[in-house]
């Protein structure tokens, strides 16, 4: 196992690096223009409506926020659980966590009906709202991880790394719980109103964060003379596999618990059997392509083809997480509110109907733009500060 105590910046002059950066900047610009148009025209130009009020931007935002929390896995393995093989990558882990969170928050803010009132959100608080708590959890996360990174960068603070790592570890679990709580505390809707959503979101964050780390570290590796360690990638991918197994178990438990209660039979039938796109995304996207397939890849693949397999499995796991959040956030709203059990309801406001939702181009651009912003931040910051391990110098020093 490679060990290092030296770090470096990314000094590549590769054309693919600059083209990637340029492409990501274009996506960021497109996302901003989409958000601007939504702000000027109003949300009627999106697919969102008074039945599905949270749409694709929220799927992307929650995906990025959960991935941010999970991206700290490597840092936690290194600083808290003292697994030395992860130590060289702890800095990148912290950086990725901050960048993903910023990307997610930007999407969330730009989708607000009044994004110009962000200052109101920062100055008026209703502490009974989990949303208000999350504002502190998100900004606090950035602060805590920054302090953690500081202890990693500043050698005189090396004695505080474990304490800072512990704080970041606890904070990210609370953050993910808070994000799950946004849905878990909604008593009105059949598919939410379940504390089980919180552990489901926590494990999903571990999957998404690990997958994001594998992808980013391997993408950076192509511009990096000393590519990431195959053995480490194998460990990370298998860790992701364990998380996927756990998530499949939790999701099964969630649905089985619902199926036990007659009042939830309607929504369960909708999600598992008759929900159209939501049923397809659940079984095909979340369970098969985003769950069982990456699971088989990371546990059954041979050692020689592992780096590429790990990358493919991570991409599929991200796709599975996207499907899971789409089904949860949008499918959960598409199923009609049950106000009068045992009665069929009809109205001009689409009561009793499965809600229509077709994601629009501005929503796609805003969501993808948020992801691209996170990537741009990583690509630029690794050039500015020494986030990447310098194996060559470490070996020479040894």
């Amino acid at each position, binding site marked *: 196992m490679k060990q290092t105590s030296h770090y470096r910046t990314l000094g590549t002059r590769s054309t693919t690096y600059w083209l990637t950066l340029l492409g990501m900047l274009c996506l960021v610009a497109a996302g901003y223009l989409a958000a601007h148009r939504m*702000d000027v*025209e*109003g*949300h*009627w130009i999106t697919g969102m*409506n*008074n*039945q599905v*009020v*949270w749409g694709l931007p929220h799927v992307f935002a929650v995906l990025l926020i959960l991935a941010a929390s999970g991206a700290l896995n490597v840092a936690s393995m290194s600083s808290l659980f003292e697994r030395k093989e992860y130590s060289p990558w702890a800095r990148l882990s912290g950086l990725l966590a901050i960048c993903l969170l910023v990307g997610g928050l930007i999407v969330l803010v730009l989708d*607000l*009906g*009044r*994004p110009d*009132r*962000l200052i*109101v*959100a920062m100055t*008026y*608080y*209703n502490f*009974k*709202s*989990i*949303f*208000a708590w999350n*504002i502190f959890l998100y900004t606090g996360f950035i602060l805590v991880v920054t302090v953690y990174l500081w202890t990693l960068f500043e050698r005189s603070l090396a004695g505080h790394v474990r304490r800072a790592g512990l704080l970041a570890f606890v904070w990210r679990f609370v953050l993910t719980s808070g994000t799950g709580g*946004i849905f878990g*505390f*909604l*008593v*009105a*809707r059949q598919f939410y109103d379940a504390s089980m959503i919180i552990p489901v979101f926590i494990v999903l964050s571990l999957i998404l964060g690990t997958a994001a780390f594998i992808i980013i570290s391997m993408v950076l590796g192509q511009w990096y003379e000393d590519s990431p360690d195959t053995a480490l990638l194998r460990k990370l991918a298998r860790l992701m596999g364990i998380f996927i197994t756990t998530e499949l178990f939790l999701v099964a438990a969630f649905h089985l618990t619902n199926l036990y209660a007659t009042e939830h039979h309607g929504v369960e039938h909708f999600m598992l059997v008759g929900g159209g796109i939501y049923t397809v995304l659940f079984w095909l996207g979340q369970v098969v392509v985003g769950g069982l397939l990456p699971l088989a890849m990371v546990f059954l693949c041979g050692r020689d083809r592992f780096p590429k397999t790990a990358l493919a499995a991570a991409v599929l796991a991200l796709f599975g997480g996207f499907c899971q959040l789409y089904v949860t956030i949008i499918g959960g*709203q598409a199923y009609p*509110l049950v*106000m*009068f059990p*045992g*009665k*069929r*309801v*009809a*109205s*001009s*406001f*689409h*009561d009793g109907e499965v809600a*229509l939702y077709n994601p629009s181009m501005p929503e796609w651009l805003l969501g993808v733009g948020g992801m691209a912003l996170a990537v741009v931040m990583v690509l630029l910051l690794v050039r500015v500060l020494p986030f990447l391990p310098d194996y060559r110098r470490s070996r020479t020093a040894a």
Partner: protein
Amino acid sequence: MPTDRKRTDDALNPDRRRLLAGAAGMAAMGGGFSIIRLALAKNDDEAVSSLTRWGLLIDTAKCSSGCNACVSACNDEHNLHGFGRPLTDPQWIRKLDLVDEHTGHESSLPMLCQHCEHPPCVDVCPTGASFRRDDGIVLVDKHTCIGCRYCVMACPYKARSFVHEALSNQKSYSPRGKGTVESCTLCVHRVDRDRTPACVEACQSDGGGAMVFGDLNDESGVLAGALRDHPSSQVRRDLDLNTGVRYRNL
């Protein structure tokens, strides 16, 4: 705290009130009774009291499926005429047609903000823009609503709408805004002038007389009396929100 909000609609300052009271005496001799009523109206600086809790009783047996008087009155009162986009146009009150799946019994009722004692929309609002007045009316402060729509997600009655596009010709007593959330105000501008909500007035005059408005806390009042004398129910009673809107023959 959100519940401490005071009425801040168009001003009637004390000096003007005294002037009007003086003029009222002369006007009354000439038959100007309405001026006396205006002079004796509550001061706008006066806080609402929790001794009052405004509410509604809706008798579904008197509400016919084809009648839309309450909806039309609300739309006219607050200028809620939409853009011809049913998925995004706001609705503060709507008619629901119900059919019992087992017996086939049909009924119809208006659904609007239920002005809950424990409103989920107020609980989840991050900025406190959704608030409940001491007299039980649940409102949205359009100046602090950031348009996050969490309250729309939280409402068990689908009573809230998000304003999806720019508005024009708004009523001065019913401010609205693109990018914010809105719902039934129980015609607070009328209630604060001792008048009944527009929907109730229309139901009495043009509809089946199914809606009764009043003070749930006033034991001698018509609403509390009707609730005491006849069985009634709350929609989603299981949530224990203690709604201000009650239904009969549901």
